[in-house]
């Protein structure tokens, strides 16, 4: 009797979750962040509904500060697989001059991500938003449900989450309430990479090492895509062999020194390197438990 591999088991579990959403929720949407986890989500959605199309649209919350390569990839890839893409931006905040240096990372994320997400979900009348978050990403996510309940204000109350038993999911909500659904809950970063490798899933080229212009500040490598990124006196970008370990907004996503320009090299690097991937995401370092606070407010 053959034993199914961990990737086969994780894949089947995620497909089951997506099908439950499609069957029981009124207006689901898939939150598409363009990152590698989103690429995996899309592939799983294709598999879940084959030979039919993906029965819900993709929603991208565009802060306008995403890397150009991300936006190019987004438009090309979603068109290629025939997915319906909706892009939402908090224009009001942008017009007020929101950027992480002028506003600080907390307020900037609050406006361009959290508020924009809630607004985008409200405008579309979505009752279930499928996201690519994993429980291994951050400590506060270890207790997150697969079907995470949000109140009428889109907020998360850690004490008011439903117990989840077996793989029987409770999708019942009242009008105005919503669900966030995380089909990749049980995946780890390495599982995601292994799956991308095994399935040959397209991802944004920023994940692969290449010579890129960076501001080098000690161990930090700062991309210089946005004109408002402040420079130290006399500071000039240098060409550095590097890659992104996770993708966010260019002013807040540091690169890492790396020459991993293939998937096997990325995985090899990952196995050897014991640094969790959110480390180069500036936003988590504001204060201990900051992700937990953002989640309570409605951030993914």
């Amino acid at each position, binding site marked *: 009797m053959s034993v199914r591999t961990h990737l086969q088991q994780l894949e089947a579990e995620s497909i089951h979750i997506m099908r439950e959403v499609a069957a029981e929720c009124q207006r689901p949407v898939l939150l598409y962040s363009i990152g590698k986890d989103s690429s995996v989500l899309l592939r799983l959605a294709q598999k879940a509904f084959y030979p039919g199309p993906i029965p819900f649209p993709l929603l991208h919350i565009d802060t306008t500060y995403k890397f150009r390569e991300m936006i190019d990839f987004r438009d090309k890839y979603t068109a290629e697989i025939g997915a319906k893409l909706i892009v939402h931006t908090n224009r009001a905040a942008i017009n007020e001059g929101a950027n992480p240096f002028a506003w600080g990372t907390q307020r900037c994320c609050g406006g361009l991500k959290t508020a924009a997400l809630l607004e985008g979900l409200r405008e579309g009348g979505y009752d279930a938003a499928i996201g690519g978050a994993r429980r291994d990403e951050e400590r506060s996510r270890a207790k997150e449900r697969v079907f995470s309940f949000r109140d009428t204000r889109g907020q998360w109350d850690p004490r008011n989450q439903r117990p989840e038993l077996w793989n029987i999911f409770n999708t019942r909500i009242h009008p105005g309430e919503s669900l966030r659904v995380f089909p990749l809950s049980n995946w780890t970063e390495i599982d995601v990479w292994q799956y991308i490798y095994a399935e040959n899933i397209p991802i944004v080229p920023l994940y692969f090492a290449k010579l890129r212009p960076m501001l080098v500040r000690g161990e930090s490598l700062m991309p210089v895509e946005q004109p408002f990124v402040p420079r130290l006196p006399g500071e000039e970008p240098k060409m550095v062999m590097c890659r992104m370990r996770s993708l966010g907004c260019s002013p807040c996503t540091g690169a890492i020194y790396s020459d991993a320009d293939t998937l096997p090299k990325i995985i090899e690097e990952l196995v050897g390197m014991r640094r969790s991937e959110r*480390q180069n995401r500036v936003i988590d370092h504001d204060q201990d438990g900051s992700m937990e606070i953002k989640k309570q407010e409605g951030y993914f």
Partner: protein
Amino acid sequence: MATTLTPLADSAFTEFLARETSKGLLRFTTAGSVDDGKSTLIGRLLYDSRSVYEDQLESVTKASVGRNAGAIDFSLLTDGLRAEREQGITIDVAYRYFATPKRKFIIADTPGHEQYTRNMVTGASTAELAIVLVDARKGVLTQSRRHAYIAGLLGIERLVVAVNKMDLVGYDEATFQQIETDFLRILESFPQIQAYFVPVSALAGDNIVTRSTNMPWFQGQSLLEHLETVQVGTRAQDAPFRFPVQRVVRPNLDFRGYAGTVVSGRVSVGDRITILPSGRQTTIARIVTFDGDIRSAETGAAVTLTLAEEIDLSRGDMIVTSEHTAEKAHSLETTLVWLNEKPAQVGKRYRFKQASRMDWATLKQVQYRLNINTLAHEQEQTLEMNAIGNVVVETARATAFDPYQTNRATGSFILIDPATNATVAAGMILQAAVSESSHRLTEVTCHLNDGVLSIASQQGFDIKLAAEGLQVTDPEALDALRHFLERLRIQPFDADKTDWEI
């Protein structure tokens, strides 16, 4: 042109990757009380298996200042939420992940205190193995029985009894053996569980990953070695084929398929199958996947089936092998674990979700409540939060099922409060209940007066319709009623007749 730019493998690393991508998965749960060192044990597993990332470790070392712990407080690696960190107690199920070259592991980490029965049950529901911690200084306590019982109740096949804090009893062999003997006595009541005993010190790392030199008298595998090699999951694979239909896939007029997961057994093209609850039979025409059609699908595979004949089939129906179909009943004898602060209400209707099927169910009777510490049956009319009881549940439509102990996927269900939408209970089907209504029905009289139907029993049988009556003026409703009464073999039905007896 395709966007696919993924560079292909070109190094010797490919071989390593092939091994990495083909390893198996073990889901286990851990139970222990606050002071058993459970968090330390898990922290140690994560740490020693090198899955603790350096920066997480740094943030933990920062947070430990001011708490009474050594250089690294492993328990802080696993305590998730801020409020809990402040209280120093875990109050919910937390999921952890680590991998070794042999297996990937998913841990459902649950607090073991009596008040947290619902968390233990939740954690155990997806686990194939449970680790129970016993403090070597304290020996086998009441809670050990509780943990073993919950593991057995939730259908866990494998138990690991980790006798912890061996360093505090001088690594004494006799202490370990005494605990093993005592625990085996408890396990006599749970013949379906296979147990493995291992003496450990989570704090010092003895027998966690490598075998301890402090206990040369112990010849068995270390905890991790056991977790890496223990065989699990055979119960579902060996069970008959079951496939709850999640969605009907109909992208165009030429294709009609049924999407779902093979929850037990296996299915091949050409297999004779039965659809439940209708009982209609046909054969499997195709097994469709995104990666192409396959000849057969095993337990755990998420696929889309097509059938040789067009049969009316919808979400919630179950496709099963005709060689061994599932049982079918309205009235179910179940074990319920109550999860909600609002106690169970006999007579109340709850939403009932079993596999992919949503129905209504009424709690008919609490037969007894189980004392989780003594395992005694107590007479009770209700179940409070964290209580476990034997309850008769009646579903509105017939439920196709297997007893939970033979099939976890088709024997389990949840109850949802229709007002709050909270998940209020976890249920495990024991068997079809002796249908009281069927023999009582012979005592029932029905009266139809001016379109009002009353169903009453001379024995005071509590069909609600008896008290409320049922207004039937709509001709369609009357027709439905005629159908219903015919199914109960109440003959002849005649709307003009105003009074008849069964």
